[in-house]
């Protein structure tokens, strides 16, 4: 029956008809009827097999990064520089798998602000180093710290590795700054991991507790769905692709705003990031072991099939993830060069991400009964 086909004149007739439908309906539904979804099991799997390992990995890789940077500072030479760069890359990949989970401890610790605000403000970094007095904890320094700042310091702009190494030799405060930024990264990453860990703050326990079940604003599901959407829109679609491609600036491209502008591996980071969201959707661990995911949740809710040709929602979202990954595969590193030479293909990636955002934010959230609102309010 279509919307709007009212029969207001005959409520009683409709009521009787409906009772018949209701009583028949139970038999027709077959094996799916009353197919209860184990929401607690879903949260336990996502929490303990995806989120906690992701933060554990981030802490570990950030620790290695700090150590490699210390070694580089102790003996600034080509080999230690390369090791520091490798450690930076690995820590950044680890971050991509944490990025969907910016709620709870991550939000409280300001994880994104301390780790992954980009592009870094070169002149601010140089000014800080020059002055020697700076507080990396301030909001004003958000774009002078984190991975992007480390990248700028380790790679430099239009300089050789030798010149980078020489720069540290010439300017001792430069090494101190590098060290301070790396220390802040590991400190924040460790704080968040400890907060989640069952041996530490055990936010995992809170995340999977009975009191946090359901789909309301304060529930774990509500937080997770809202956080993944917010992060996907702003940190993935906009920051990694849309802003550099000029989508938010009337077509004036900003190639320098790409995530790894100096290192040139922006696309690897983007691919890992989208992969993180896809794995979360499918309930897959980093190693690809499948558990309860949003796809199973949507199946249990028999989400949305209206016309016959349409894929069920879980398959449609999965296909859209592949479309996004496919379109990223078709563009080439370095991303800033791609934007300068053939931006239309980057804009296509944005369009595919937009379509994915629609499915995640409207269809999926709606089918699960999650209200998308980063704001508390009455409704009716």
């Amino acid at each position, binding site marked *: 029956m279509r919307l709007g086909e009212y029969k207001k004149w005959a409520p009683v007739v409709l*009521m009787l008809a*409906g009772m018949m439908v209701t009583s028949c309906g139970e038999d027709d539904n077959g094996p799916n009827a009353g197919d*209860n979804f184990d929401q607690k099991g879903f949260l336990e799997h996502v929490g303990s097999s995806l989120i906690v390992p992701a933060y554990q990995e981030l802490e570990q890789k950030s620790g290695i990064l700090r150590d490699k940077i210390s070694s580089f500072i102790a003996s600034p030479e080509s080999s230690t520089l390369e090791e520091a760069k490798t450690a930076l890359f690995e820590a950044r990949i680890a971050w991509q798998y944490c990025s969907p989970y910016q709620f709870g401890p991550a939000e409280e610790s300001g994880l994104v602000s301390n780790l992954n605000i980009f592009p870094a403000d070169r002149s601010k970094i140089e000014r800080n180093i020059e002055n020697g007095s700076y507080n990396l904890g301030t909001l004003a320094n958000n774009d002078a710290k984190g991975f992007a700042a480390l990248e700028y310091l380790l790679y430099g702009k239009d300089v050789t590795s030798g010149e980078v190494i020489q720069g540290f030799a010439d300017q001792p405060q430069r090494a101190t700054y590098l060290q301070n930024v790396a220390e802040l990264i590991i400190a924040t990453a460790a704080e968040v991991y400890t907060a989640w860990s069952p041996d530490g703050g055990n936010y995992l326990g809170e995340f999977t507790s009975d009191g946090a079940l*359901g789909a309301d604003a304060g529930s774990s599901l509500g937080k997770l769905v809202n956080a993944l959407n917010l992060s996907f829109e702003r940190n993935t679609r906009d920051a990694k692709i849309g802003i550099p491609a000029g989508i938010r*600036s009337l077509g004036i491209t900003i190639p320098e705003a790409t995530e790894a502008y100096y290192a040139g591996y922006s696309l690897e980071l983007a691919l890992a990031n989208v992969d993180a969201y896809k794995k979360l959707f499918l309930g897959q661990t980093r190693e690809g072991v499948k558990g309860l995911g949003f796809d199973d949740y949507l199946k249990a809710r028999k989400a*949305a099939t209206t016309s016959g040709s349409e894929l069920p929602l879980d398959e449609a979202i999965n296909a859209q993830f592949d479309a996004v990954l496919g379109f990223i595969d078709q563009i080439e590193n370095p991303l800033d060069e791609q934007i300068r030479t053939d931006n239309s293909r980057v804009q296509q990636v944005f369009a595919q991400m937009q379509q994915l955002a629609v499915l995640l934010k409207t269809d999926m959230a*709606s089918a699960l009964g999650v209200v998308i609102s980063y704001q508390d309010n009455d409704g*009716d």
Partner: protein
Amino acid sequence: MKPWVGNIFSGKVPIAPLVVFRIVFGGMMAISTIRFMLKGWVAELYIQPRVFFPFYGFEWVKPLSGIGMYFVFGLVLVTSLMVMVGWRYRLAAALFFLSFTYIELIDKTNYLNHYYFVSLVSFLMIFMPAGRHFSVDAWRKPSSTKLIVPVWSVNLLKFQLAVVYVFAGIAKLNGDWLLQAMPLKIWLPAKSHLPLIGPLLEEEWVAYAMSWGGAAYDLFIVFFLLNSRTRPVAYFFVIFFHALTALLFPAIGMFPFIMILSTLIFFPPAFHENVLNKISRIFRIKWPSEGSERQDNYRLAPVYKWFMVTFVCWQLLMPWRYLLYPAPLFWREEGYRFSWRVMLMEKAGYVSFHVNDPATGRMGQIANHDYLTPQQEKMVATQPDMILQFAHFLAVELKNQGLTDPEIRAESWVTLNGRRSRPFVDPTVNLVHQQESFLPKTWILPAE
């Protein structure tokens, strides 16, 4: 004129029901206002937003700056308490109505049917002699006391409640609600973690039973409340129904409690007199008897009579205005508000605004969150009139940034009651050149 009509206009009834209603209404409004302020919503909804979405025809209503909005909320609080205790009752009721309605007119993002209900009831209360007994006014000036009031005052309140319920029931008589059990089939399983009833909520038949039960409740409860023999059972259902909705949908806030207490008006005067007597005994207050100030035989001045008739007709017609627009109502939302459509659909959307500057050929998209609060973003995405308002706001904003004649188009996707999301408005239409009016919007795409 037929005798019963005369009775509606000039009949008499003890004042007690009106007094209890006044106390309950004023008290609940005070609690609601305090709750609203404590939650920080004054700043969040009326001070911080960069853009507001006034109703068509009320574009001149603007929020006051900063502390000014707190003053308005303070006025709402003070006047609701004045209504409750009956101090300068009529002035208080008028000021309450004006300040409360002013707030509601600022931004349709925050529109709720129960706020509309509060505006209407407080408007009616301005004209009612509800402060003539059991009030500061009567205590200060015993001669003003009235123990008998015109029956139209109580009946008008009953009518207003009947309108809320019956139209809410009629709104549920649609295919999605009755035949698909939508949106309850989405909303109820989301509550399956609740103790005791939780597991049941995942059963499909429960969604159907509650859809039909809810529709029947809304349609018929008033008639059972009106009948003295069924009233006690009916009131039990009122409590049960609203308590259930409060439990299942905590986001509806104060509404269930307002309805539970407001429907007490259906009880006979003796019940209310009993309540008032008990309170008087506890506080050892002795109220003056009928005052000397007898002004009339409770006959209604013609101007009031016509005003009442107009109000009633308007109430009965407003919810039907959607019939003047193309279907489907839930998709297009033309004539959706002010019609007691409460908790009726699961609708979510996503809208991006594309900007084109013909002078330079430059194109881009707006980051909605640069301008809108999360709540506004959500509402804009599914409501065509708000899409248009925001596009017009953006046009001004972009002109201020130096664009001479920006074109703004909306690309939007909306999902309704579990259907797959589909394009909502025509992405080729330059919204800058579309004007808001009461005419149907030609640029809304078909629902299927």
